């Protein structure tokens, strides 16, 4: 190591840390504090009573149920997309990534049903899983996987929304099957011609 190559003067270091902490405090800590102050404004007893209301309990139960459905689906589709997008380069990759990003931009438009998802249960679970994944998993795969979160929650909303089948749906179904077939064409045609798996050299 070259002496001083990465050395930062203490002043600069504390300035950076201070600025970052100020941003975190301003944008995250203050709103969080405000939420808790508001929640316990009437005292702990009022909070407990509000949480125990049948409506609140039913809402929490529904939220948890949705989370239980969404999370395994997320894991399955996310793993596939993470693998395809993170490990391979192919024509149309940017297009695919863009389509996966799109639900962020349209989710409230697609369904006011998004309100169903408002709730701390699945959010808390997702929060925990995300934290654990970033600490233990391969960040690049997880980065790609995270793209799918909005996508799959939208899928669940569509399913729960009970939309009727229409000609458009039929066309889209056909497109889906075609897409899956195109994607699997290689494995169907040349199952044996893969070179033996070897360690991929990153970077």
């Amino acid at each position, binding site marked *: *190591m070259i002496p001083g*190559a990465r050395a*930062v003067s203490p002043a600069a270091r504390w300035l950076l*840390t201070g*600025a*970052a*902490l100020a941003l975190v405090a301003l*944008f*995250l800590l*203050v*709103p*969080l504090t*405000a939420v808790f102050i*508001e929640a316990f404004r009437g005292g702990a007893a009022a909070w407990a009573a509000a949480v125990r209301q049948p409506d609140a309990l039913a809402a929490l139960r529904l939220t948890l149920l949705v989370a239980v459905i969404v999370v395994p689906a997320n894991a*399955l589709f996310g793993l596939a*997309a993470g693998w*395809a997008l993170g*490990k*391979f*380069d*192919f024509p149309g990759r*940017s297009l*695919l*990534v*863009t*389509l*996966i*990003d*799109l639900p*962020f*931009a*349209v989710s*409230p*438009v697609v369904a*006011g049903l*998004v309100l169903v998802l*408002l709730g*701390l249960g699945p*959010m808390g679970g*997702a929060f925990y899983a*995300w*934290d654990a994944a*970033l600490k233990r998993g391969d*960040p*690049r795969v997880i980065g790609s996987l*995270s793209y799918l979160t909005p996508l799959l929650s*939208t*899928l669940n909303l*569509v399913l729960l929304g009970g939309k009727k089948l229409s000609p*458009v749906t039929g066309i*889209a179904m056909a*497109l*889906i099957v075609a*897409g*899956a077939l195109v*994607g699997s064409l290689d*494995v169907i045609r040349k199952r044996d011609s893969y*070179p033996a*798996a*070897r360690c991929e050299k990153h970077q």
Partner: protein
Amino acid sequence: MKGSRPLPGFPVSLGVTVTGVSLVVLLPLSALVWTATTLSSEAFRATVTAPRVVASLGLSLGTAAAGATVASAAGLLIAWVLVRHPFPGRSLVDSLIDLPFALPTAVAGITLTTLYAPSGWLGRPLAALGVKAAFSPFGIVLALVFLGLPFSVRTLQPVLAALDPQVEDAAASLGATRAQAFFRILLPELVPAWLTGFALAFARGLGEYGSVVFISGNMPMRTEVAPLLIMTKLEQYDTAGAAAIATVLLGASFLLLLGINRLEAWSSTPRRSPQ
């Protein structure tokens, strides 16, 4: 990598991905465009060029871009400090980053409005400075920065952590200054992740409804965002009109996201497919 494909699983994973994307993204979106096409082209044009609609689309795009920009800048600083400068309580701050993901957006919106209203903790000092935070476009940007921050931090953090500090030593040994090492060695490595974070924050901000409706004040022509206008149309049972606005918003975000993702792919090409 492209030709020989040393790793297995490409056809299967791509097939599943394309299937998923078709089912969840293309299917609802084609239904959206389909609904918009029930309008005649004149009616479509009249709907999307109405001054109130144009103003709301401009406001949505502008505030989403501003919010994502601020979140990206702040995110780089926060990610840098979290990875490179350990301090007491670092893990606590690290967990706090995910808060906007964990907080329901309506709760976030009400809280931010309370904070930035002229009588709020943060709104009062801002009002004293003559800045109107809540019920102005600035307030919308503040809400979108709050929402966008975790995207930026969480995409940058793993890349920063994976960077080998020895490349900085090498740069220094070849005579690079600290600033040169940062701008010419570190920054190019960070750009793809940075752009991804920006794109996610931008897209999230463009469609954001729950947290924005409370803080914006929803004044037509001034602080009415496009998603709100879509909701208004839906409540008036003007499904086709809502779909028309949504289609324009969708087209704009699609093009912007595609551009950003192309840029991201281009800036990381040397790493992804070594020749």
